[in-house]
């Protein structure tokens, strides 16, 4: 009896292997990207510079631009002085820029901030799982959040001309909040 069942099992074996391979393939499926109107999942880590805990949730209550960046990414470095300008320009109206740095070295991130003359708060040491929730397609990726923490604008990549786009979006958000 046992010997008779073996050929049948052998015939099924390739099917099992195929199923296993498909299961592995399913693990690589991407998550849903954040869109306008979605609640921002939140990013938390340590503040770049002093290492104290810092989260995007700390800025809830006012409009925030969360910029996910790295020092090894040239468009990200290009964005730093522009974001600093926007941060300064609208700070009096409750707006803030918060960086979310993905460098493995905090030193590299600090140096990039210093070179750009930027001093807005930056979260460092983000967990991989937090970044996966954003399902970013490009570096840098920016998320303009309203006071309730909802995404109002997703901005991928950065060019010099983008300052006007961001400025307009921030002004619209601030006017809506009045």
């Amino acid at each position, binding site marked *: 009896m046992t010997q008779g069942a073996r050929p049948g099992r052998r015939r099924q074996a390739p099917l099992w292997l195929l199923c296993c391979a*498909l299961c592995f393939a399913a693990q690589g499926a991407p998550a849903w990207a954040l869109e306008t109107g979605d609640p921002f999942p939140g990013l938390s880590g340590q503040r770049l510079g002093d290492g104290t805990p810092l989260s995007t949730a700390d800025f809830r209550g006012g409009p925030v631009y969360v910029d996910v960046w790295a020092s090894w990414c040239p468009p990200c470095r290009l964005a730093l002085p522009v974001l600093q300008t926007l941060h300064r320009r609208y700070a009096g109206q409750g707006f803030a820029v918060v960086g979310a740095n993905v460098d493995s070295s905090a030193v590299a991130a600090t140096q990039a901030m210093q070179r750009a003359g930027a001093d807005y708060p930056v979260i460092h040491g983000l967990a991989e799982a937090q*970044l996966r929730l954003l399902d970013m397609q490009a570096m840098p990726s920016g998320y303009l959040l309203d006071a309730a923490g909802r995404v109002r604008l997703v901005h991928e990549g950065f060019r010099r001309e983008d300052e006007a786009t961001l400025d307009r979006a921030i002004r619209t958000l601030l006017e809506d909040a009045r």
Partner: protein
Amino acid sequence: MSRWPLFCALLPILAGCALPPVQPWQREHLAAPEMQWEAGLAQESAIRAHTYSSKEAAAPGPVLGGGGCGCN
């Protein structure tokens, strides 16, 4: 003939599809200058052109005369 070898060969290929793509924030090492394929080649071809023009007494190319040791 046993199909096991065929399926054993196919399995890693199919499982390879499961490798998640490199995410934008994971490209730190890939973004390093020494990892740039084209940049390295461009530099090498510039060095070769410089050596060629010097050794062949032809600067900036094989048409005009010139010379040099190729050491600067």
